[in-house]
Structures are given as structure tokens and as C-alpha cells.
């Protein structure tokens, strides 16, 4: 039963009072639905689970809507419920083992590798030539390789320009934690993108051998 779900929204999950009309919720939800779905896809790693997650979070949020203060940040409030739902589902499943060779990624990884491989490192949008050869799903695949704590923060950051404060609010962690995970996650993501580009044959063989 949803009322008994451990995926409780922030602070309190009041008894359903339905004090406010569904249309009010729907209007607010509609404005964040696309981003919420994008985040859910990144979190769950597949579309069907993402749809279930968004649907579950939406219903949960609607039931807790009385606790939402009008005029405050609905986006952060809803994303918190969404991520809580996700973490709760994950706890119910067996945790996937985290194996990552991304931990030791040096600074400026893509910059250095791009230079070695003959991709542009200068100009107005120098990374575009490499990234434009990767489809959206391949960039998603790169994000999927990050350990979960970095994947979640990076997803929130890249999907919707959430501020550090909003991400901290969503995840219920200090801003400093958001900052350090984000900075580290970006480095890891650069290496993951390079790995994906290598696997796709975008990077030529002689550079592959130096690409770890």
C-alpha cells in the first residue's frame, strides 16, 4: 500500500487530506515532469522502471501535497520525493556491487586525451567534436558507469541546472557533500565518456592503447 510505503516524502507524510484540488498539483507537476522523467531514466537505467518510478513518486507527492507550502520550491520538493522513492526501491532490491575503475581519474582527463587523439582542445566549443559523435544514449551509458552516489548527484546537476543548495535539499545532505561529489563525479564522467568513445570506435586504435 502506498500509504505504508517507506518512500516517505520529506519531513512528514501527512494523512491524505486532499485539501487541495488535483488540478493544482497537476499544473505544478506538469512543469517538472520532463525533467523528473529524465532523472528517473538516469537513476533506474531503464525506461520502464523510470515510468514506474515517476508514477509512484507523483502519487506519493499528491498524497503529501498538503505538506507542500505554496510558493516554495516545488521542483526540489518533488525531486526529493522522487529520489527518496528510488533509494527506497533500491534498498528493497539487492544492492548492485559497485565496481569502478573511475576513482583515480586525473584532472582534465578529456582535455589531455583529446589532445593526444587529435581532437580539438581549443575554440569556442572544443569538446563538441568528440561529444557530438556520441549519441544521447551513449552519454547516458557513461553516466551509468559512475558509482551511485556520484551518478545521482551528476544526474540532478546535468538534467536541470539545479543549484548546489537544491541538490542538497533533494538529497538531504550538506552542500559540501554535493560539491565534492559533483567535482569528483565530473572527473569520473570524463573518463567514462572516453571509455564509451573508445568502445564505439570513435577513438583510433593507437590512442586506445594509451587510454587505459
Amino acid at each position, binding site marked *: 500500500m502506498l500509504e505504508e510505503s517507506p518512500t516517505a516524502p520529506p519531513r512528514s507524510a501527512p494523512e*491524505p*487530506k*486532499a485539501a487541495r*484540488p*488535483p488540478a493544482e*498539483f*497537476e499544473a505544478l*507537476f*506538469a512543469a517538472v*515532469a*520532463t525533467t523528473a*522523467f*529524465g532523472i528517473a*531514466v*538516469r537513476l533506474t537505467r531503464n*525506461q520502464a522502471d523510470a*515510468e514506474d518510478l*515517476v*508514477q509512484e513518486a*507523483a*502519487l506519493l507527492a*499528491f*498524497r503529501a501535497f498538503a505538506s507542500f507550502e505554496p510558493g516554495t520550491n516545488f521542483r526540489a520538493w518533488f525531486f526529493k520525493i522522487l529520489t527518496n522513492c528510488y533509494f527506497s526501491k533500491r534498498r528493497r532490491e539487492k544492492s548492485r556491487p559497485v565496481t569502478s575503475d573511475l576513482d583515480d581519474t586525473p*584532472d*582534465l582527463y*578529456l*582535455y589531455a586525451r*583529446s589532445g593526444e587523439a587529435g581532437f580539438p*582542445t*581549443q*575554440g*569556442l*566549443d*572544443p*569538446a*563538441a567534436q*568528440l*561529444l*557530438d559523435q*556520441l*549519441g*544521447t544514449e551513449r*552519454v*547516458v551509458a557513461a*553516466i551509468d558507469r559512475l558509482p551511485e552516489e556520484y551518478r545521482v548527484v551528476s544526474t540532478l546537476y*546535468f*538534467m536541470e*541546472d539545479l543549484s*548546489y543548495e537544491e541538490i542538497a535539499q533533494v538529497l538531504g545532505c550538506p552542500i559540501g557533500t554535493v*560539491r565534492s561529489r*559533483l*567535482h569528483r563525479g*565530473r572527473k569520473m*564522467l*570524463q573518463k567514462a*565518456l572516453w571509455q564509451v568513445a573508445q568502445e564505439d570506435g570513435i577513438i583510433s586504435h593507437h590512442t586506445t592503447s594509451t587510454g587505459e
Partner: protein
Amino acid sequence: MSHPLNRTTCEEAFRRLDDFLDRRLSQTEMRMIEEHLEICAACTREFTFEASVLTGIRRKLRQLSVPPDLLARIAAEIRAAGNSDSS
């Protein structure tokens, strides 16, 4: 040839790269980095490249749309929940 004391070094600038790109620095620090970038071509290349990576990833990730029937399903579920809660 030597760095004046009040001039930001490449190392100091680099340490602030992520915070600079996210505009998390104070106005004074932002200005310090901007001034450094005006005179340092190497750092400018690195900063521009990093900014370009971030922009590129964002551009890619935002090309996803919500399945239309998902919104309809959610709307129906919410209305049903609203009706049952108010009855």
C-alpha cells in the same frame, strides 16, 4: 617574470576551476580568475574545454522526452486518488 603577490597563479586558478564554472566563488574570486584567464592562454584553453564538456553533456541529456501516455496515466491516477480521498 615573477608573479606579483596579488596575481592569481595558474595553480590557484586551477584549484577553483569547478567552482568558477559553477559560479560558486565570491565576486572577488570570480574577478581574480577572470583576470587570470585574460592573461593566461593555457588556463583559458583548459577552462574553456571544461566548460564545453559540461555544456555538451547537458545538451545531450536534455534530448529526452516524457512518454505521452505516462502523463495521462499519472493524471488519471491523481484524479482517482483525489476523488477517493475526498469521498
